[in-house]
């Protein structure tokens, strides 16, 4: 195994173990507000605007690195504008829609080990079976995954995709501090470790484990690079939709990320 993912996993694991502090309560965060700010929110009842209001205070993850995270967020935002968005547009122009869909399907199908291993680790054996059926259908009937035949079959059409971060969540491991990763974007200490695990298990990256004796292994970058490029249009679209109508884009992305991940753990 390439030592890099392992090192990544260990570093993030250490971070996660240091970061078990819960998200600050409404009272605590309100108490920190600048002078002249409105009265502090004292309890959960006070955080309600009416009887059916169950939204709480909106603080969903601890963010002790907020200053660094915000800086990374805006650097990423600039890089998305000058680099990612043009690349995504170029890719969309160069490849017709049906071909892009086929490429997406192949990479998604190849990610089967990530999903099935995490189904098993979470004790979801029925789901692991459905994932296996989906993989077999798409690989054999769908020409190596190009066509997603599984969409036409009831028990394989809508399987929630499991990953390592979700497995940690199911095991009761909290997010830890929120982290904005350079280029990649929003994550948490827990999900960062999970990301390393998923990266190692994804066949698109398997080439990175092999080196020939002459050190000539440039080919190994092709599948992971293609995977990154093909996912850019979708990721840029999601990011732009959130950012466009946000009051505070940093908080909008942080909250959406945490909400989405919490929901994924529940599924």
């Amino acid at each position, binding site marked *: 195994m390439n030592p890099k993912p392992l090192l990544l996993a260990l570093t993030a694991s250490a971070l996660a173990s240091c970061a078990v502090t819960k998200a600050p309560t*409404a009272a605590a*965060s*309100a108490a920190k*507000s*600048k002078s002249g*700010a*409105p*009265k502090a*929110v004292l309890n959960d009842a*006070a*955080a*309600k*605007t*009416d009887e*059916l*209001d169950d*939204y709480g*205070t*909106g*603080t*969903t993850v601890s963010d002790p690195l907020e200053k660094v995270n915000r800086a990374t967020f805006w650097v990423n935002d600039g890089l998305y504008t000058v680099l990612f968005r043009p690349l995504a547009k170029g890719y969309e122009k160069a490849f017709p829609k049906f071909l892009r*869909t086929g490429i997406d399907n192949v990479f998604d199908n190849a990610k089967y080990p990530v999903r099935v291993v995490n189904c098993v680790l979470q004790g979801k054996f029925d789901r692991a079976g459905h994932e296996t059926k989906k993989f077999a259908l798409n690989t054999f009937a769908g020409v190596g995954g190009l066509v997603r035949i599984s*969409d036409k079959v009831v028990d394989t*059409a*809508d399987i929630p995709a499991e990953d390592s971060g979700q497995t940690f969540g199911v095991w009761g491991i909290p997010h830890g501090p929120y982290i904005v990763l350079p280029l990649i974007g929003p994550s948490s200490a827990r999900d960062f470790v999970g990301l390393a695990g998923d990266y190692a298990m994804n066949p698109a990256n398997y080439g990175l484990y092999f080196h020939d004796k002459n050190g000539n292994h440039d080919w190994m970058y092709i599948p992971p690079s293609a995977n990154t490029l093909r996912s850019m249009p979708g990721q840029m679209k999601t990011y732009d*939709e959130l950012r*466009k*109508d*946000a*009051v*505070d884009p940093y*908080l*909008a992305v*942080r*909250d*959406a990320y945490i*909400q*989405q991940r*919490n*929901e*994924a753990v529940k599924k």
Partner: protein
Amino acid sequence: MTKRTFLAAPLLALLTAGLHAAPADEAMSRLRGAVNEVLGIATKASSKSTLAVSVTPVLRKHISFETMTRRAVGPGWNSFKPDEKAKATQLFSSLVVRTYANKFTPGEQPRVDYKTATSPAAGRVDVPTTLLYQGSRYSVTYRMEQAGGWLITDVVIEGVSMIANYRSQLDSVFKKGGAPAVLTSLQQSVSKQS
């Protein structure tokens, strides 16, 4: 158990089930009507801007913008003056309409599959749906509440509640600068080019 109670028990159970099912059915029927109206407009629209204009009156009919704004602002809402509340509601409505309208590509027809609605509290019904759109599948849950008729009070897309998301932002703005800061932030967001 007497014969009468033996017969009455299942009858009562049926009646109670009927009473519980009624709000969910009403809310679901209202939602289906609203979604069909919006999709009808989205299919016919020639551009995003015309779509936003045409869809606004329909959304105003089916969405409780006052509830949405109050909850998006959070606990700070109680210290807003009446004119500030009205202004915030007007600005937030514009933002919601734009956010919602931007999710559609004119001319494209999504497929919506409705799942079983639940009623987590009296006066509230959650309607989960699956949206098949441009080859992708999205889980979209509509939160509906009784306010002189069933109205939409939140849309949860892939587990992300629109109102909770705005609350995380506006609550933070309020804590820093109160109602004026919230109104300024909303104004800036509305003025941004979409």
